[in-house]
């Protein structure tokens, strides 16, 4: 990022208040225009409900939304934790032995491009349609990829000067791992976890479209839409966005805390 005085090429950076206000103002304007459009009859209110109508549904179904967000959120959280752990372990294995790195490469490449919709039905059969495990696994797989990739990169970032230094201290492999390798990689891992957080939520949500116990946000979105209750469907979508936002903000806070001093 260029410093403030590179001003010739760019306008002045917004201050903190502007940085917070700008997205809020944009959001309010968009919602306002949407409300006007929805009221004007230019857009079919039936298919794209007005923000006011969505708001009403949010108020009315708040308790259901909360419990649904709980179910989906728990799936996403378990998936995120599981996927992150596996990602870190796999990255450690890959960084410790070239063959493992080579062997994991095609598997990770495949996982990175696999559409959830394709995997959900078979995972439901493998783990049972009456349990949340399939969904948690899908969230886990989605989270695994970015955490693995960023951690693997982070494990390669150890500075040569640090490595030399630890060697001159005659440090053991484990000491080197603990004092520099892991600590250097940590900010990268947490960047990966932040990237993974929204992926985990969206994946847990979409997995609900393909069977399993009911009650999650994804199921409610589809059920509401199928019965033409679009304001309610969008109310659940808003809940889904908020859930994703919550995951993002928490993981962002973690990331910031960890990478304060790289």
């Amino acid at each position, binding site marked *: 990022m260029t410093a403030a005085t590179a001003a*010739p090429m760019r306008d002045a950076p917004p201050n903190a208040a502007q940085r917070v206000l700008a997205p809020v103002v944009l959001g309010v304007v968009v919602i306002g225009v949407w409300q006007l459009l929805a009221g004007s009859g230019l857009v079919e209110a039936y298919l794209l409900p007005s923000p006011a109508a969505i708001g009403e549904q949010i108020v009315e179904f708040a308790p259901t939304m909360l419990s649904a967000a709980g179910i989906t959120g728990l799936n996403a959280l378990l998936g995120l934790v599981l996927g992150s752990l596996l990602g870190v372990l796999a990255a450690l294995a890959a960084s410790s032995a070239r063959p493992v790195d080579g062997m994991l*490469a095609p598997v990770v*490449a495949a996982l990175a491009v*696999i*559409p959830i919709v*394709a995997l959900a039905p078979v995972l439901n059969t493998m*783990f049972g349609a009456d349990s949340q495990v399939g969904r948690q696994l899908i969230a886990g797989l989605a989270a695994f990829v970015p955490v693995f990739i960023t951690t693997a990169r982070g494990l390669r970032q150890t500075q040569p000067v640090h490595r030399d230094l630890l060697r001159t201290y005659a440090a053991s492999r484990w000491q080197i791992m603990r004092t520099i390798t892991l600590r250097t990689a940590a900010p990268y891992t947490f960047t990966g976890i932040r990237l993974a957080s929204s992926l985990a939520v969206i994946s847990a949500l979409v997995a609900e479209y393909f069977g399993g116990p009911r009650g999650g946000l994804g199921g409610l*979105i589809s059920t509401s839409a199928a019965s033409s209750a679009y304001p309610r469907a*969008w109310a659940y979508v808003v809940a889904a966005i908020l859930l994703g936002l919550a995951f993002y903000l928490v993981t962002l806070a973690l990331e910031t805390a960890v990478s304060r001093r790289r």
Partner: protein
Amino acid sequence: MTEAAIALVPPRRRARDRGARLRVWGWGLAGLFALGILWEAYKALGPADGVVVAGIRVLPRTSDLAMPHLWEMAGRMLEPVTRAEGANPLWLEIVLAASLTLGIAAAGWVVGVVVGVALAVVMQRWRIAESALLPWIVLSQTVPLIAFAPLVRSWGSRIEIGALEWQDWMSVAVIASYLAFFPVAVGALRGLQAPDRIHLELMHTYSVGWWQTLTRLRFPAAVPYLLPALRLAAANAVVGAVVAEVSTGLQGGIGRLVIQYAGQASGDPAKAWAPIAGAVALGLIAAGSVALLGIILRTYRRSEEQA
């Protein structure tokens, strides 16, 4: 490093590292082989109903319904899709569907790239735009696609520009672009902001304006950031296209086969795995194609190679 990333290494270095490349492929194949062994070994040794701990099935069922043998999946590929006369072999059906989806995903990728780069340019130009837009761009990806698949189709059906009538595949491409634009917007923004201060000031001393700085400095400097973003966008476009096909029921694509064969999975469990393999291959091909772009643009990646 992912396979796609390996494909991005420019040919100069590749030729020099032919031995290394062989090793990479060798280990990659070994990895897939190991995965296969793991699958079959667990299927042979694991309990039919999976491993259940405290009421939670932590390891999958091993029944043929849940985990068909690998050779059955492979063998199924060679057999005809159905008993209907003249039916194509399954693999051909997958290839045909995959090529249709690839075309749609490519269209979605192009739209996503254009939109993403445009957003990045706007955000680079006005910092207040970056503040206002970036959080929403991040949030946009938490909206489940399926929520607006019907909307896109419905709005699309009203668009008619001269002779160009809205086609259903275009709805799918638009939805695919929704996933594709995101990494491009973020990556391009980072790339456009990447030039060193010294380079920016140099341009300033040449008293050139924003536009020339953009084209002569920011875009070339953004290439190393843009390429991985474009690769991610390609993978996302494929995922988006498959989801949108499922969502809108578009005929002829791999997404359609996913639901169709999933519906036949009870009697023919191996068949359901074929479109999954197809989707993965598709994603890898799409991401790999971006590698070609990387080769064309290799002059702009010199700094990267140094690193």
